[in-house]
């Protein structure tokens, strides 16, 4: 009896595969074809481009935390490594194409991530989280202290060279958005291939039962370090986008603990171990403060200054996270899934009745 019930749900799953593909296709058409034509500079600069960079960072952290189950509080350190590496590569190796710089910057971030991933071989849970904080503070300290990384700029803030790929200048708002979109699309595709591969399954196996994973011959140490390296690579590339496509400057303060938490919240709110989750979470994190400030201004007018805004942001965000952790630990991705299922059942029910 239970078997029958189970079979029914199992059989229902493939039904949705094609709508999902259609959905992705539609999103890509809007992102590549429609938005570049209709969006304003404000939409590009204040929403879309930072959304893409943060979504990518969320994707990277999701590999480590969502899939492999290793908590990290040091994400923005790896964004910083990526950003500074790309800046210095562009500065010191001017002949090298920027896409190669990005790749190398990602590799540098991966190497640093590997280093700070070593404690994970011994520590887990809370202790590992604390050790990743060390990465956060150490990296920020190094970029503050060692002037070479910011080309000895007295303020510590450096302006990055304008974006161009293969001689094509991409320095407009739309250009920088499209550049970020291209990078995010490519990396997301690779990440999707990764999580669907046997190695991706091994990450989850490690998270769900490390002893069983070891017994069946998953090279646990190697897979853990791989998770740190791949995750840091992606977060490093996100850092490059943050610096080159969004801010157009690099400074250590932009990659502080707040940013690390922001990325962690993206993953939690969006949904652990879900690729869509990273995008949904990033969308919420980017759009939510803007909505809140509009709403606050509308309701309170002049009383709603930047201090109040920041405070209310923190409070509402905190409440949101607690709500999600309690009511929907699988995040926005699962929430949307459920809504979608309900809508689908409702629609097909209607069809059956009328047709």
């Amino acid at each position, binding site marked *: 009896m239970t078997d029958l019930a189970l079979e029914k749900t199992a059989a229902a799953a493939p039904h949705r595969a094609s709508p999902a593909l259609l959905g992705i296709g539609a999103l890509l058409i809007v992102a590549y074809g429609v938005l570049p034509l209709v969006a304003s500079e404000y939409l590009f600069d204040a929403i879309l481009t930072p959304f893409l960079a943060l979504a990518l960072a969320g994707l990277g952290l999701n590999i480590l935390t969502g899939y492999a189950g290793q908590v990290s509080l040091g994400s923005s350190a790896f964004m910083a490594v990526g950003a500074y590496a790309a800046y210095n590569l562009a500065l010191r190796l001017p002949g090298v194409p920027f896409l190669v710089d990005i790749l190398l910057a990602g590799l540098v971030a991966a190497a640093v991530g590997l280093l700070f991933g070593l404690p994970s071989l011994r520590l887990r849970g809370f202790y590992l989280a604390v050790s990743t904080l060390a990465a956060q503070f150490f990296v920020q300290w190094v970029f503050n202290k060692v002037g070479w990384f910011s080309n000895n700029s007295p303020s510590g803030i450096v302006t990055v060279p304008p974006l161009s790929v293969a001689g094509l200048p991409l320095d407009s708002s739309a250009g920088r958005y499209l550049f970020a979109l291209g990078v995010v699309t490519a990396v997301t595709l690779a990440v999707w291939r990764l999580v669907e591969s046997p190695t991706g399954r*091994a990450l989850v*196996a490690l998270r769900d039962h490390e002893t069983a994973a070891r017994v*069946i011959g998953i090279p646990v140490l190697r897979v853990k370090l791989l998770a740190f390296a791949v995750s840091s690579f992606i977060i490093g590339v996100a850092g490059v986008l943050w610096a080159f496509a969004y801010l157009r400057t690099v400074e250590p303060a932009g990659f502080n603990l707040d940013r690390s938490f922001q990325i962690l919240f993206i993953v939690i709110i969006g949904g652990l171990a879900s690729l869509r989750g990273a995008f949904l979470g990033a969308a919420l994190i980017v759009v939510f403060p803007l909505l809140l400030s509009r709403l606050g201004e509308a309701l309170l007018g002049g009383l709603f200054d930047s201090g109040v805004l920041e405070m209310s942001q923190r409070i509402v965000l905190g409440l949101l996270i607690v709500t999600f952790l309690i009511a929907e630990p699988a995040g926005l991705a699962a929430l949307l899934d459920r809504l979608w299922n309900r809508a689908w059942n409702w629609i097909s029910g209607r069809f059956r009745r009328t047709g």
Partner: protein
Amino acid sequence: MPAVLSEAFVSPAAGTVPSALAVEALSLSFGGVTALSDISFAVAPGEIRAVIGPNGAGKSSLLNVVSGLYQPDRGRVWLGGHSFAAVPTDRLAKLGVSRTFQNLALFKGLSVLDNVAAGLSHRLRAGLFAQVIGLPAARRERAEGYARAEELLAFLHLDGVRDRPAGTLPYGMQKRVELARALVARPRLLLLDEPMAGMTLTEKRDLSGHIRAARDDLGTTIVLIEHDVGVVMGLSDRIAVLDYGRLIADGTPDQIRNDPVVIDAYLGVAHDLEAGEGI
């Protein structure tokens, strides 16, 4: 029962047919608690060997030592012609040994199919890059793994739930998924720690059939911890009895059934319990 013991234990080094598994003078204690005390026995290839005994007798500890999760204080483990003071868990699968756990040890977030396919992890050759790019060798390897896993799902009647996250299945079914994951690599030696705990009589009968089929069709040697004496007597070729970390008997079901020491230490009690509720 030293007589029974020495009869069963042909020294693996000297024996003509190498044992699938032998343990020699194993001892293990946790602080003041003695989990295993000077345990020696051998399991012949193709044998179904039950290990019984009251709770806390050291049965799980024994399997944990054999799979390298615990290191014995003294003694050795023989697996497929190799002798170990501490079994390397990382190489266990390559040595042809797989196991299930007393408490469910599934990958809850993975589908049933992926759980079972994961049992082939130690055979994977393709690197990460090849998998992501989708090089032919990686694709072939992956397809073969899934094909093997599908066979196992059919064998254990799990095909109806192949795409469900393993964590969402009822308990008895999860136990079966774990068995499938352990069997998919066609191990030479399969260690089962209470695979039927919490199952109904019908489920137990089904699973007994599957275990016997694994031995008959795949030639797997099986070491099985089980509390249900009825199941054990019907299924096993030989039975080892542990009590307080000591091996108090080792023989055929008939020998064990009539062994006064075993009746005293375990069977008398166990039968009473069985009558009340299947443990």
